[in-house]
C-alpha cells in the first residue's frame, strides 16, 4: 500500500481529472442532442404525440337550372379509431363489435384500411346513425382511441328521381387509390363513384382539412383539439346543371317504378339536358356511407328490370321506326326523293324481295303513299323500297355521318356506344363473304337489323331534325355547347320532315292520341321487335313543331307499341309547356 502524500495527491488529481473529463464528455453529448440537434428531436416528439385527424370537406352542392338543390350535404357522423398497430386495432374492434354491429368482414376491412395508412384514423363507420353515436359516447371511456366527429354527409333530396345522373359517393376503393386518376387521395376519403359525382369529382370534392389530437404511447387520445392551429376544410365548388328538376321529378313520378323505361329531355338548340331518367330507379341516399348489403342484393336480384342499369344511356335497343327519319334524311340529302315521291309498289301489307315476303306492320297496308304519309303512318313497305333506292353502302355511310355509331358525348360516365356498321365489309366479316343478302338493307331502312341505339343518342339525332341539321352534344352541366352539322338538308326539307312528324301526332298518324292541346308536338313512334317477348316502344319527338325548344326521347321496355311511349313523351312535353313558371331559387356559390 502506498500512501505517500505525493502519490495520493497525484492519484487524487488523476482521479478528479478523469471524473471531470467523463462528465464533461457526457455534457458534450447532451449539448449536441439538446442544443445542436434539438430541432430534429422536437419534430420526432411532435410526431409521436400528435395525430392528424382528417376533417372531410363538404362536397359541392349540385343545383338545377333554376337553382333548386339536387345534391347537398347534411350533418352526419363518422366513427374512426386511432391505433398504434393493426393487432391492437383488431383487439379494439373485437371489443367494439359487442357494442355496435361489426361483422368479421367489417373488422377485416377496417384493419386492411389501417394497414395502408396507419397514421390516419381507421374509419369504422363512415355514416354512423345517431343511435350508434350515442351508444359509443356512453362507452367513450373504454375506447380512448375512438374519434367521433361530425362529417358532412351527401344527401339527394329527391333520391330516386335524380339517381340516373347524379350517381352517388362512397369511400374510395383500393384499386382507385393505385390509379393515376386518384393520385393524392387517401384511404377512407369519400369520392364520387358514379354519375355527376364521378364526372365532376375534381370540382365537387373540395380540400380536406385536419385537426390534431394528442395521443399517448398506446395511441389513446389524451387531448382533443391540440395546440396546433387546425387546418379548416375547404368545401367543394358547387355545380350548376342544365337539369330541370321539376321536369325530372315529373318524369320520375309519372313513370313510377312499375315500368321499365329510359327518358331523356333535351334542349335541341344547346344540348342542355333537361331531364335524364331511368326507371325503375334506386335511392342513392342509401348508398352513402356504404351500401347496405341487403339493399345491394335486392337491387341486383331484380335481373329483369335491373334498377342499376341505366336505360337512358347504358341500354341499347333497336331504334325501329324512329330511325325512318334517318333513312328519309339520307334519301333527301342525296336527292333520291322529295316529299311527294311515291314508290313503285304501293303498300298492300308487305313487300316481296328475293325469296322473302317483307311485311309492313299494318297487314291491311297503306296503299300508295308519298314520303310525308309514309312517315306519318310509318309505312314499312315504302321504306323498304327507299332503302333499296339508297343502296346499302350509302345507307351505312349516311348512318355514320348521322353519328349512329358514336356516343353522344354526354358529360356522364358509363355511356354505351351504339351499334352501327361502318360499311358493307362488316357483314362480310360477320356472315362470311357472300353469305348475306341485300335483305340487310331492308332491315336497316326500318331501324332493325344491325342497329342498336341508346335513348340518349336518338335524342341527339332528333336535335338535328328539330333545328337546322346540327346535332347538339348533350350536356348535363353547361360547359361549351357543341353543335355539329350531321345532315345536309335545306330548311324546306327539314320543315317538311318536321311537318311529317307533326302528322304522326295527329289523326293521320300512328300516335294521334299523343297530341297536346295548344302545343304542336312532332315526333316518330317506333316498335322494336324483341324476338319472342313483347316489343319495345319508342317515341322521339319535339315541340313546338316549327321552333322546337325541347326534344324528348322515350324507350318503354316491352311497351308493345310506339304510341305507349308517345303518350309518355306527350305528358312530359305538356307538363313542360303548361306548368306554372318556376321562380329561380337563390343559388349559393357559382
Amino acid at each position: 500500500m502506498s500512501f505517500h502524500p505525493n502519490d495520493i495527491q497525484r492519484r487524487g488529481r488523476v482521479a478528479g481529472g478523469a471524473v471531470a473529463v467523463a462528465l464533461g464528455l457526457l455534457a458534450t453529448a447532451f449539448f449536441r442532442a439538446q442544443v445542436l440537434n434539438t430541432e430534429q428531436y422536437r419534430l420526432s416528439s411532435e410526431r409521436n404525440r400528435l395525430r392528424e385527424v382528417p376533417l372531410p370537406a363538404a362536397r359541392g352542392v349540385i343545383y338545377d337550372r333554376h337553382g333548386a338543390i339536387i345534391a347537398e350535404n347534411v350533418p352526419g357522423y363518422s366513427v374512426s379509431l386511432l391505433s398504434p398497430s393493426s393487432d391492437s386495432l383488431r383487439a379494439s374492434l373485437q371489443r367494439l363489435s359487442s357494442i355496435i354491429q361489426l361483422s368479421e368482414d367489417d373488422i377485416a376491412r377496417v384493419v386492411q384500411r389501417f394497414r395502408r395508412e396507419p397514421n390516419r384514423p381507421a374509419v369504422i363507420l363512415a355514416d354512423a346513425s345517431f343511435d350508434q353515436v350515442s351508444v359509443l359516447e356512453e362507452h367513450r371511456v373504454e375506447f380512448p382511441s375512438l374519434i367521433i366527429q361530425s362529417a358532412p354527409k351527401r344527401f339527394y333530396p329527391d333520391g330516386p328521381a335524380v339517381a340516373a345522373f347524379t350517381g352517388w359517393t362512397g369511400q374510395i376503393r383500393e384499386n382507385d387509390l393505385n390509379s393515376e386518376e386518384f393520385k393524392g387521395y387517401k384511404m377512407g376519403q369519400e369520392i364520387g363513384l358514379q354519375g355527376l359525382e364521378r364526372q365532376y369529382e375534381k370540382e365537387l370534392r373540395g380540400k380536406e382539412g385536419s385537426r390534431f389530437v394528442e395521443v399517448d404511447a398506446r395511441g389513446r387520445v389524451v387531448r382533443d383539439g391540440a395546440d396546433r392551429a387546425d387546418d379548416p376544410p375547404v368545401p367543394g365548388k358547387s355545380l350548376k346543371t342544365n337539369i330541370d328538376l321539376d321536369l325530372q321529378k315529373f318524369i320520375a313520378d309519372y313513370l313510377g317504378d312499375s315500368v321499365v323505361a329510359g327518358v331523356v329531355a333535351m334542349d335541341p338548340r344547346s344540348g342542355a339536358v333537361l331531364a335524364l331518367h331511368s326507371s325503375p330507379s334506386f335511392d342513392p341516399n342509401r348508398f352513402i356511407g356504404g351500401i347496405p348489403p341487403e339493399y345491394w342484393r335486392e337491387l341486383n336480384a331484380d335481373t329483369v328490370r335491373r334498377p342499376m342499369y341505366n336505360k337512358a344511356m347504358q341500354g341499347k335497343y333497336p331504334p325501329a321506326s324512329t330511325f325512318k327519319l334517318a333513312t328519309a334524311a339520307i334519301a333527301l340529302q342525296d336527292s333520291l326523293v322529295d316529299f311527294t315521291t311515291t314508290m313503285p309498289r304501293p303498300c298492300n301489307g308487305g313487300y316481296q324481295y328475293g325469296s322473302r315476303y317483307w311485311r309492313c306492320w299494318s297487314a291491311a297496308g297503306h296503299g300508295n303513299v308519298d314520303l310525308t304519309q309514309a312517315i306519318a303512318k310509318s309505312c314499312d313497305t315504302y321504306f323498304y323500297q327507299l332503302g333499296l333506292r339508297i343502296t346499302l353502302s350509302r345507307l351505312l355511310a349516311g348512318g355514320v355521318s348521322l353519328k349512329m355509331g358514336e356516343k353522344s358525348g354526354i358529360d356522364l360516365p358509363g355511356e354505351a356506344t351504339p351499334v352501327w356498321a361502318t360499311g358493307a365489309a362488316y357483314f362480310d366479316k360477320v356472315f362470311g363473304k357472300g353469305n348475306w343478302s341485300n335483305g340487310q338493307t331492308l332491315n336497316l331502312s326500318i331501324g332493325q337489323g344491325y342497329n342498336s341505339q341508346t335513348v340518349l343518342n336518338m335524342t341527339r339525332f332528333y336535335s338535328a331534325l328539330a333545328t337546322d341539321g346540327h346535332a347538339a352534344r348533350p350536356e348535363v352541366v353547361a360547359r361549351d355547347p357543341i353543335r355539329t352539322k350531321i345532315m345536309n338538308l335545306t330548311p324546306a326539307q327539314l320543315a317538311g320532315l318536321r311537318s311529317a312528324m307533326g302528322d304522326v301526332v295527329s289523326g293521320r298518324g300512328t300516335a294521334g292520341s299523343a297530341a297536346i292541346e295548344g302545343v304542336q308536338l312532332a315526333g316518330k313512334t317506333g316498335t322494336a321487335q324483341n324476338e319472342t317477348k313483347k316489343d319495345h316502344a319508342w317515341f322521339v319527338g319535339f315541340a313546338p313543331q316549327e321552333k322546337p325548344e325541347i326534344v324528348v326521347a322515350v324507350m318503354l321496355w316491352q311497351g308493345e307499341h310506339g304510341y305507349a311511349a308517345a303518350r309518355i313523351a306527350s305528358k312530359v312535353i305538356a307538363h313542360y309547356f303548361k306548368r306554372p313558371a318556376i321562380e329561380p331559387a337563390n343559388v349559393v356559390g357559382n
Partner: protein
Amino acid sequence: MADYPLAIIALLLSAYGIAVVYSAGQTDARIAADMGAYQRQLIWFAVAVASAFVLSRLSVRFLEWVTTPAYALAVVLLLVTLVFGSGAGTAASVKGWLTIGGVRLGQPAELAKVAVVLMLARMLAARREPPKSLLELWQPAAAVLLPWVLVMAQPDLGTGMVFIGIFFGMLFWAGVSWPLLLLVASPAISLVLAFSTGIWGAWLLVLIAVVLWYKPYVVEGVVLIVANVVMGVAAPILWEKLSPYQQSRLLVFLDPSQDPKRTGYHVIQSQIAIGSGGLTGKGYLDGTQKRGAFLPEQTTDFIFAVVGEELGFLGVSLALMLFLFLFLRVIRVAARANDGFSSLVAFGLLGSWFVHVIVNIGMTLNLMPITGIPLPFFSYGGSFMLACWLAVGILIRISSEGRGEADALPIGLRR
C-alpha cells in the same frame, strides 16, 4: 472534521431527484403506482438520511470488523436470489430482487457492492506495497470474481460493470501501476475486440509490447498472452451463449434503429425526449414524451430522460455539476482519510457511484448499453436510496476521522 459540503450536495441531489420522481409520475395515463412514487421515495429518503446519520456515528473500525460477515452474507443472498429472485423494470428478465411471498425485500446486489468495497479495501490496505505482479492480485481478484459471477448469472450486466469499476478504481487508488492495470484488464479487452479480427490482432501486438516492456514473471506473461488468445477465440462462442435479449440489447446499443419497436424503442424514445427538451426544456411537469408514456421506465432507469426533456440542457448541466462536485468531494475524503482502509473504502464507493452515473446517464443517450442500473439519488427505489445514503454516512464518518489535510497523512500508515 466531517465533510458537510458532501452531505449538502447529496441532499441537493436527493431533493432534485425526488422532484423529478414526482414529475415522472404525472402522466396522462395516471398510473397510481407512478403517481404515488414520490411519496414513498420521500419516506425512504427520510429513513435513508436517518440511517446514514446513525452509520456516521459508528467508527470505521466497526466497518472493518463487519467486512467478512457482510461479504459472506452478500454472497449467500446472491446465491439465494439466483434461485428465488424476480425481475423488475427494463431488466424484468433479470432475477435481481430478493422476493419472499411476493414482497420484494430488496436487491442483494446493493449490499454486495458495499461488501466488495469493504473486502477489497481490507485486502489492499493490508499490504505494505501496492501489488506489482499479477500473482499478488489473485486475492482481490477472487474477492470480486465470486460475487461478479453470481451477479452476471442473474444476469445483471449493469451491476457486473459496477464491480469492475470498483475493482479497477480501488487498484488504481492502491497504487497499482498503469501497465499492470492494463495487463489485468487485457483478457476482457480481448473479449470485446475479438469481434474484429484485425483490431484484435493489433491489440495483441500492443499487449506483447507492454509485456516486454513491463517484464512480469515469464509465467505470467505467457498466461496473459494465452488468456488473451483464448478470449479472442472464445468470444464468438460466448456470444452464442448469451440469451437473445442480451444479444439484442448489445446490438441495439450499436444501432437502435434496427429494432425501433422493441428493444430499440426505449433508447429512441429516450433520445427524442432529451433532444426535444432543448436548452431550457419543455417545463417542469410538462414533458410530452413523459406524459404520453413514450418514455420507458421513466421513474427508474430512464429518469434522467425526464430531466433532459423537462429541464433541458440547463437542468442536465446542473445535475452533472452536482455529480461532479460530489465525486470531487469523495476524492477529497479519500485523499484525506486517516488510514488506508478508510481511504480505499471511500474511493471504492466513488467507483461504484461513478459507474452508476456514467452508465445510467450514458444509456439515456445511447452512449452505453441498456443495463437497467439506477441513477444514484434520482431513480425511484427504496433500497437503492438507502444504499446511496449509507455510503454518504460512511463517507461522512471517514471524513470526520480523517486528518483535514492530505499531506498530513503518515507514510505507509496502516490503521
